[in-house]
């Protein structure tokens, strides 16, 4: 379950699907298996997610799900998958409450926002020499929860915090610009839509204001948010930094022409589901029950993310982390 179709033809939504596909074909080649995919085109639309989840749940050939890509969809479709006995491993849904136990079969291979919030807050406090930090959130639950976590961390570190809320999709950029006074030298943008963050960054620049900007993981997309010198938090490391990852990256580029190193968690999520399916195979067939039984104890010692994959009792990845990159000259540079 990942996006692969965009009404905006300039945007490539298919990065997660591409990475998942590379992982699938690689796994089949390495293990002599014949797993295949049943694609479901879903990004942030909960209605669409429910429709696709219902289709997948009714298809008895589907033994596991890679996805959903977003927290809001995970919350909507989780009960459908749970009722169907399907386990679902997300490469990018980071809302902390997804692993509070209400979604029985939800797993994720990336750290959640309870890690991201403090990570961003601590980075601001220790590296950006903040006077006062303006934390901008929109009205989506992802943004609200993350902004609260960032603000809490900053206050604990003795940093003054100011808050402002905007509407997702149509942020009041003037209000944000006005809120950035001389005492504010850092603006945190844990927003759901990267384009909203770009509008705010552009407006600040146009107004001659130059605070340090730090964005959250949903804005990790240079095509949508590319404010020079801004920082962006992400759970996805540069996969080319590992030997295995560099090899897979070359394969990705060979197949798809372009290269997107930060979609690798989707490949790891696919590898996780496939490994559980293979390990639980009986008489040459994998089953939903087998995958669900096997996933909690799965251990991948080496992955292209540079960390081993295993799950804690809440189905969160063990030792998940967030990294901070800086945007310079249309590229990301690892800072922390």
């Amino acid at each position, binding site marked *: 379950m990942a996006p*692969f*179709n*965009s009404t905006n*033809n300039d945007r490539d939504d*298919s990065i997660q*699907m*591409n990475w*998942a*596909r*590379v992982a699938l*074909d*690689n796994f*089949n*080649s*390495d293990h002599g298996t014949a797993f*295949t*995919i*049943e*694609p*479901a*085109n879903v990004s942030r639309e909960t209605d*669409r997610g429910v429709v*696709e989840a219902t289709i997948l749940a009714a298809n008895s050939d589907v033994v596991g799900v890679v996805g959903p890509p977003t927290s809001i969809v995970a919350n909507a479709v989780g009960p459908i998958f749970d009722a169907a006995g399907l386990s679902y491993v997300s490469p990018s849904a980071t809302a902390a409450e997804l692993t509070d136990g209400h979604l029985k079969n939800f797993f994720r291979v990336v750290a959640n926002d309870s890690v991201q919030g403090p990570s961003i807050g601590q980075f601001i406090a220790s590296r950006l020499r903040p006077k006062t930090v303006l934390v901008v959130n929109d009205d989506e639950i992802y943004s609200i929860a993350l902004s609260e976590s960032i603000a809490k961390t900053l206050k604990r570190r003795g940093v003054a915090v100011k808050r402002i809320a905007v509407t997702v999709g149509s942020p009041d950029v003037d209000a944000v610009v006005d809120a950035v006074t001389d005492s504010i030298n850092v603006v945190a943008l844990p927003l759901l839509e990267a384009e909203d963050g770009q509008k705010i960054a552009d407006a600040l620049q146009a107004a001659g204001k130059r605070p340090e900007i730090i964005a959250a993981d949903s804005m990790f997309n240079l095509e949508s948010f590319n404010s020079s010198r801004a920082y962006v938090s992400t759970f996805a490391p540069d996969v080319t930094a590992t030997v295995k990852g560099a*090899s897979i990256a*070359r*394969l990705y580029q*060979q*197949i*798809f022409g372009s290269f997107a190193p930060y979609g690798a968690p989707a490949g790891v999520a696919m590898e996780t589901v496939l490994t559980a399916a293979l390990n639980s195979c009986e008489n040459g067939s994998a089953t939903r029950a087998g995958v669900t039984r096997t996933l909690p104890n799965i251990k991948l010692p080496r992955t292209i993310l540079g960390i081993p994959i295993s799950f804690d009792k809440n189905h969160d990845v063990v030792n998940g982390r967030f990294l901070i990159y800086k945007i310079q000259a249309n590229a990301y540079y690892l800072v922390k």
Partner: protein
Amino acid sequence: MKHGPSSDHANAVHGPRWLPIVLALLLGTAAVVSGITAWRVAVHLGHSQTAFSVSTKAFDDTNTLGQNSTDAANEERSLFIAWDQAQSGGDAKTTENIWGMMSIPAQRAITWWIEQPLANRPPSPFSAANPQWTTPRTAVEARNASAEASAVFADAGDQLVQSHNLELLEALLAIALLTGGLAALIRNTSSQFILLGVTVTAIFLAVGGLVVLW
């Protein structure tokens, strides 16, 4: 009574009475170890040559696989564009002709794509979301073939290094044979013992090296 010169005494090994036996044993051991070492050199050299040949063929096959994969990807896209244009233009004959020129996997990929509802249809049949699109798998296989070829090539290199190292041991054994022979001829006892020491050391090093480099 004088003890005149005797040809036996003139040819006898000077030194302790056990020296001739020890020298014989040492020189014999050196000769045997040298023979075994030479055999192992030949074995490793043979393996190396075989592996180089295999890796050359493997690299050729890899290049072919990779080229086939690239050609297939280019061809399927070109034919699809031409087919789509012919179909949109209502040219049924050309559409059918082009369809016939496509590979079976490309036809399957396009058929799957056509059958998808618009909301779930990728922008192109040759898309990761299409389970019938087989080009990624051929790219994976080309890459794996390349990795195997590289591994065989690396093994060939290792075998060659192994044979060179064993040849060094043969040089050590040659030294042992020389010093052992000299020990038999020299009259000075302390020099004999030094040469004996060198002989024994060279043989030990060679045997140890042979065990390690086997």
